[in-house]
């Protein structure tokens, strides 16, 4: 069963198409990464899933129903963090929980328990403005999960967190996932997603580039680059069949060999070793960033790929 089903969804703001004919299915119980550079359309998609804004065309099904009906079963940590500055932490969390339909009588104890769990003891009665930014972020995370949602949407949950808090949050995310919560994790920091997600969804300029599990991605994007450093710098690496291009950065003894499509990388490794002694030979596993750039290049050409690479490095 799918927690989220998006079919042909389009959303246009004046002249910009933020999301363009998007199809997507998020299986229940998965931890799915929503990836793409800033402005790719991630937040717009999430807002549409949350029924905060409505799509111009297409259909969105959430938890087997309409997004509006399911609002109370969804937890949401928006990218833009916010708390009522003057409100007390406990009151704020309980208020959001009640707005989300939490009916439990022990809500207060439940909130206190969660605050302990997030290593925020003694803040229950403090005003939100008295907390540090990182603490406020944890309070916001709590506000997103306190009503025990079936679907949890986290928009850039780690931005601005110190490594210790980040690890704590990661642990809690994994724990929720263990309890069966479907989690969508949106980020522009692609390697973060690589570490915790089991399914990835890549979006660029409102168009889906990739939608697959991590294993599928690893299998599909097998290494296309070999780095090697021969003892004899003059050996002709380009002569090996299957090598498309040899690139040596100025001053570097390491040569980067680009492989032709469809050739067996292992066979080329063996051939290279036959050429002569090597200081090092290495299959380069592509990072998500590289896969992303590659996908953009395939779809929109070299110039677009360069722009995408820039967008990623900038953010």
């Amino acid at each position: 069963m799918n927690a989220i089903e998006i079919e042909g969804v389009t959303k246009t703001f004046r002249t910009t198409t933020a999301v363009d004919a998007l199809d997507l299915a998020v299986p229940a119980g998965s931890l799915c990464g929503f990836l793409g550079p800033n402005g790719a359309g991630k937040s717009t998609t999430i807002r549409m899933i949350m029924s905060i804004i409505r799509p111009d065309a297409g259909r969105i099904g959430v938890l087997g129903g309409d997004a509006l009906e399911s609002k109370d079963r969804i937890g949401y940590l928006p990218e833009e963090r916010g708390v009522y500055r003057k409100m007390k932490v406990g009151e704020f969390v309980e208020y959001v929980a009640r707005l989300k339909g939490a009916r439990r009588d022990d809500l207060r104890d439940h909130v206190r328990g969660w605050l302990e769990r997030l290593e925020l003891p003694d803040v229950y009665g403090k005003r939100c403005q008295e907390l540090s930014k990182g603490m406020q972020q944890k309070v916001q995370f709590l506000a997103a999960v306190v009503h025990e949602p079936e679907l949890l949407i986290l928009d850039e949950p780690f931005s601005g967190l110190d490594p210790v808090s980040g690890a704590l949050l990661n642990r809690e995310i994994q724990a929720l996932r263990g309890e069966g919560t479907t989690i969508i994790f949106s980020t522009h920091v692609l390697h973060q997603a690589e570490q915790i997600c089991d399914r990835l969804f890549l979006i660029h300029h409102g168009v889906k580039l990739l939608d697959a599990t991590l294993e599928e991605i690893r299998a599909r994007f097998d290494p296309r680059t070999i780095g090697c450093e021969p003892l004899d710098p003059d050996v002709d690496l380009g002569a090996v069949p299957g090598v498309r291009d040899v690139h040596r950065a100025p001053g570097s003894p390491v040569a980067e060999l680009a492989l032709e499509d469809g050739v067996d990388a292992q066979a080329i490794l063996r051939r290279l070793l036959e050429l002569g002694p090597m200081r090092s030979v290495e299959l380069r596993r592509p990072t998500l960033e590289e896969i992303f750039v590659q996908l953009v290049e395939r779809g929109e050409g070299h110039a677009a790929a360069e722009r995408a690479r820039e967008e990623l490095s900038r953010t």
Partner: protein
Amino acid sequence: MSKALLVAWREFKHTALTKSFLLAAVIGPVMMFVAAIVLPVLLQTPPKKLEGSLAVVDPTGEVVVAVRTELDPERIAADRDEKLVGLEAAIAQVPEQFRGPVQDQIDRLRDALVPEVAVESVDDVEAAKARVLAGELIGVALYRPAVLAPTTETNAFELYLPADLSRRHADLIEDRLARAVVRARAQRAELDLEKTRALLRAPTAIRSTVTEEGETRENELARIFVPFGFMMLLWMSSWIGGQYLLTSTIEEKSNRVMEVLLSAVSPMQLMAGKIVGQAAVGLVMLALYGVLGAASADRFGVGHLVPLHKLGYLAVYFFIAYFTIAALMAAVGSAVNELRDAQTFMGPITLVFMIPFFLWFVVSDEPNSSMAVALSFIPPLTPFVMVLRIAGTEAIPFWQIATTSLLGFAMVVGSIWACAKVFRVGVLLYGKPPTPGELVRWIRLS
């Protein structure tokens, strides 16, 4: 509890149940009320008796005789009694509920202690002034002979008093010394002073207005100021509630709490909850100021002038005024990110809602003039102008109350409809605040 009510409760709690609100909205008027109760009591405590010697410089020797007569304790007591008889006769003609302030005046007069002042005739003003400074005299009066046959320029005398003399005593001395001049003049002209005074006393008119319900006593206070009080009450409660709505919406936006809220409630639920919550704040203010106003009016003996049976209308027009203002404030608050940006839109809105203050006197003076009737049908002014007209003493045709209420409700529906559209788009929009033209475009969006 429904979600909108949850929002409303939070809105109310965090506006009305805060220290700053209590300070600003409650303590101010409470203090005023306390002052209104306590000050008259303080003023009523009888002043201490006036005793001492007064020096008179009078070359004619005629005025000083009159001064002695005027400052004779028996004379003073007799004048007081005469005044009391007059006041009591006047008050008897007035219905019970009108008597409050006059009765106070009578009581004060009756309780006042009769002064005992000895009069000395002296020649040297400067020496007498020195004795005033030394505390031996309670004053020196200098009468020049011309005062007995006065022209406009010479109709005056000089009076030198010590710094520590109370105002009330100074007034009393001045009054008696002035009367002494008149007495001396009458003496010289061989007139019977008492008879002449009685002849010259102008009678007071007891005005009544003939209406279908019978004769009513006309009162300037009821005609002009009570409507103003009603309108002020309406304006304050609706406008201040609206202001809170504006700032809390902007706060939610700039704090970015908005998105968390919108993940739980729809923009319509949020807007409805906020408006209802602040309506409760407005009603608290209305009740508070209303009760305080009525109580103060009662305290000052003009309680009967506050037409309590008209409070129902006030509630209807509060509903119209508040919900119109609230919808506008929610829309403006949702469209901008900072209070500063809101000023662009608030300028014109404030101006429109200030118009009733300029119209107050004209409308209250003639509540059934064609202009007043016409103004009642200009939507943003309707509730204020109608309250001005209804709270006055003239009867307003019921068809006008009915049609303006309907018009008002139409205005409420229309402004909530338009502002909800702006709100829905505005709440999630960050960055440059929209221009008025863009707002209109949002309203046109389906």
